[in-house]
């Protein structure tokens, strides 16, 4: 099973051009019997290694020119062309899917939720603790102690952690003020 992965088009053309000239000169010098032997090809194109029969490379393309007729060339061209077109199509489709996933209403609401839950805003922290803008740090700590204990005793852990986070947030704010 031949690997139908084509190389980059630029590389293909330069390699095939150099190979064409080299194979032309070699074909002129070698006797006819050599044209059909696969073992000569590593000499012509040493960079492709010994795995020639398994690779659809530029070497096979130029070899095809000097062996059987146009049908093989046309077939190889069709295969290469369809492979390139197919790959481009698949890439474009995947990119379109990606773009669709990144935008859209559902995605925006998700992002809203994520942005809101990333941290706590100062205003929300003040609301949770019942603190006004003018309160001092002692007031904050008083309210925090009361609420934390009440929710720890007969509240839920979730509310207690919200109280804790609110105090953390206000701590940062009050430290920045000083």
């Amino acid at each position, binding site marked *: 099973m031949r690997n139908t992965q084509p190389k980059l088009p630029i590389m293909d053309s330069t390699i095939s051009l150099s190979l064409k000239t080299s194979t032309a000169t070699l074909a002129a010098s070698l006797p006819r019997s050599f044209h059909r032997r696969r073992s000569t090809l590593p000499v012509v194109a040493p960079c492709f290694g010994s795995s020639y029969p398994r690779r659809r490379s530029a070497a096979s393309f130029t070899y095809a020119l000097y062996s059987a007729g146009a049908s093989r060339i046309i077939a190889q061209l069709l295969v290469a062309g369809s492979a390139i077109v197919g790959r481009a199509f698949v890439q474009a489709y995947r990119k379109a899917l990606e773009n669709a996933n990144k935008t859209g209403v559902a995605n925006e609401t998700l992002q809203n939720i994520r942005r*809101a*839950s990333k941290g706590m805003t100062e205003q*929300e922290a003040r*609301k949770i603790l*019942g603190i006004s803008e003018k309160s001092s740090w002692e007031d904050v700590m008083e309210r925090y102690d*009361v609420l934390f204990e009440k929710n720890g005793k007969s*509240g839920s852990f979730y509310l207690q952690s919200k109280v804790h986070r*609110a105090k953390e947030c206000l701590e940062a704010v009050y430290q920045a003020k000083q």
Partner: protein
Amino acid sequence: MAAAAVGGRYMIRTWQAFKAHPVSKFYQGGFQQQMTRREAALILGVREHDPFHTVTAAHRRMMVANHPDAGGSHYLASKINEAKDMLAS
């Protein structure tokens, strides 16, 4: 012999990591903009599909603890009421 030593060291390491791990970490962030059933269940300390009587009992307990007239905050009380409305509908 070597395998036993390696195994023993691994066991000791996992035991130390287990002991060092805090029992429970506080939840991050603030309340969600739009309350979900999951958040409501977390607020009341019940499960999402708990029966009506469980939810109302939990709500009563929370309101006693966080009543605005008895030292709680209005915001938390409103959140508790909202959670109860969502779950005990």
